[in-house]
C-alpha cells in the first residue's frame, strides 16, 4: 500500500493539521515508510482471534449518575488562549 499525495492531503484535513506547501511530499515519503512496516500485519491469519483492548479484559465500570465534580470553570479557563465571561472565544461560525 502506498498513500498518494491526494490521500496525504485528505488525512491532514481530517486530522485538522495544516500542511505547509512543499511539506506534503516529505510527509508522504515518511508515512509510506511507516505503512510499509505496518503492512507486515496482513501476512498473519487472525481468523477467530478475539481483539484485545485491555490486558485483563475488564469491562468499563458503572457509577451512579450523580455530579461528582465541583465547579472549577475559572481555574480551567485561566489556561485558555481566549476566554471572556465564562465563554471560550473562537472566530464567528454562524453569520
Amino acid at each position: 500500500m502506498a498513500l498518494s499525495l491526494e490521500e496525504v492531503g485528505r488525512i491532514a484535513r481530517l486530522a485538522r493539521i495544516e500542511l505547509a506547501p512543499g511539506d506534503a511530499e516529505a510527509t508522504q515519503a515518511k508515512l509510506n515508510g511507516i505503512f510499509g512496516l505496518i503492512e507486515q500485519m496482513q501476512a498473519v491469519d487472525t481468523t477467530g482471534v478475539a481483539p484485545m483492548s485491555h490486558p485483563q479484559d475488564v469491562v468499563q465500570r458503572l457509577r451512579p449518575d450523580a455530579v461528582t465534580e465541583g465547579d472549577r470553570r475559572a481555574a480551567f479557563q485561566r489556561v485558555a488562549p481566549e476566554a471572556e465571561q465564562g465563554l471560550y472565544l473562537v472566530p464567528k461560525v454562524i453569520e
Partner: protein
Amino acid sequence: MTLQTLKSLADALAQKKTSSRELVTDYLARIDARNPAINAFITVDRDGALAAADAADQAIAAGHAAPLTGLPIAHKDIFCTEGVLTTCGSKMLANFVSPYDAHVVSQLKAAGVVSLGKTNCDEFAMGSTNENSFFGPVKNPWNLDRVPGGSSGGSAAAVAAGMIPACTGTDTGGSIRQPAGLCGVTGIKPTYGVVSRYGMVAYASSLDQGGAFAHTAEDCALLLNHMAGFDNRDSTSLERAKEDYVRDLALPLKGLRIGLPKEYFGEGLAADVRGAIENALAELRKLGATTVDVSLPNTHLAIPAYYVIAPAEASSNLSRFDGVRYGHRAADFSDLAELYARSRAEGFGAEVKRRILVGTYVLSHGYYDAYYIKAQQLRRLIAQDFQQALQHCDVIAGPVAPTAAWKLGQMADDPVQMYLADIYTIAVNLAGLPALSTPAGFSAEALPVGLQLIGNYFGEARLLNVAHQLQQTTDWHLRRPGN
C-alpha cells in the same frame, strides 16, 4: 560521590543527620551544575521545592512524618502538576500550567516527597531518544554525544547524573525501561492498570503506564508503594488490594526459573550487549537461578501492531489540542477551521504529526477492521505468547535494547529505523505485563547496558526481588558517569 539512594536519604532524615531543606538545597545545586550540559529538566521549581522541604522538616520535627517525607524527586513533564508548568515536551503546551495534580503526583505528595521539578521527554512521550522535545534533546550523562533513550530520557538522565535520587516516568512502548537501560539506572513499568493514568497526559491509553526510576530496585519498590493503587478517575484502573512491593526484596533466588526468549537473542543484538546480558545471567545463576529457553514467536509482529494501536489512540487523544481550551493558538487565522489546523500545525512537532496522521488514516472510514481490529488481534497473539512462555519460567530475561546508547542525530531522520530499536520492549506493553530494567554492565564503548526482566501480571514484587538480589552481589548500579 557515594551513591545516594532514597533509602539512605530516608534513613539520614530519620536519624536527624540531615534535613529536607539541606537535601533539597544540595540537589538544586547539582541541577544547577549539571543540567546545562545534560538538559534533563524543563522546569526547576526552586521556590516550591524549598517551601515543601520546610514543611517536611516541620512535619518530621512534630513527629508526624509520612514514609517518604522530605525526600526529593522529580516528575516526568507528562504528569500534571498543579501550579507548575506541564509541557509534555511540546510547543503546544509550552505555557500550560495545570489546574490540578495527576493521581501519581498527589499520591507521592501525600507520602511526603518534595518535587524539584519536571523532566524533559519526547513530545507527548512519542520517541525513543528524547530528540523529539521542543525543549531540545537530553544528553546521555555517560557520553554527551549520545542519546539518553526515550521517551522518559530526562528522568533517566537526571537520576544517572545524580541530579535527583528518583523520578517518575511513563512507558507506552519502552519509555521507562529503554532510557533506564541506556543511562544505567533502574526503571520499572508496572502491570497495565496498576498505576492510575489520571492526570498523566494521554498518548496511547490502552498501553500508557506510569512507573519509576531510581538507582536501586529497593527505591523503585518504595516509590511504587505510593504510586500504585486503584483510582476511580481512571476507567482502566484495576480494583485490587494495596500491595507492599518491598516485601519480597530479601527473598533468595534459589529455584528461580528464568526464561530466555530465543527471539531476544537473535540477529540484530549487538555482541557487546549480548556479552553483558550473559554476564548478568551468570550472576543470577550463581544466586541459585536456573535458565530455560523459551519462545515468543510473534515478537516480530509487535512493532507493526504497536504502530497501528498507538497512533490510532494518539490521534484520538490529541484531538483535544485545538487552540481553544488550552495550549498554543496560532496568531493568524480567518475562520475556525483554520484556527484548528494552524494551531495544531504550529504546536505539534514532526513526529507527533506523523503519528496523528497515521492514526487518523487507520481509523478513517473503511479501514478500521483492516488496521485497528487486526492489530488488536495480533495483540492477543502476542499476549498469549507470554502466557505460554511463563508456564515454563517465573520471569523472562533479555536485553532492553539491541545496542547501547547511539549517537545523537543518528536515526533522527529515519522514523522506521528508530521504531525497530524498540523490538524488545514493545511486546510487553501490548501484553500489559510488568517489566523492569536493571544495570547489567557496560558496552565496548563503556556505555551502560540494561537487563530487562519481564514478569507475569502483578509480578512486580518478584521482579524487584530479582533485581534487588542481583544488585546485592554486583556493583553495576553503583557506577557513576563522569558528567
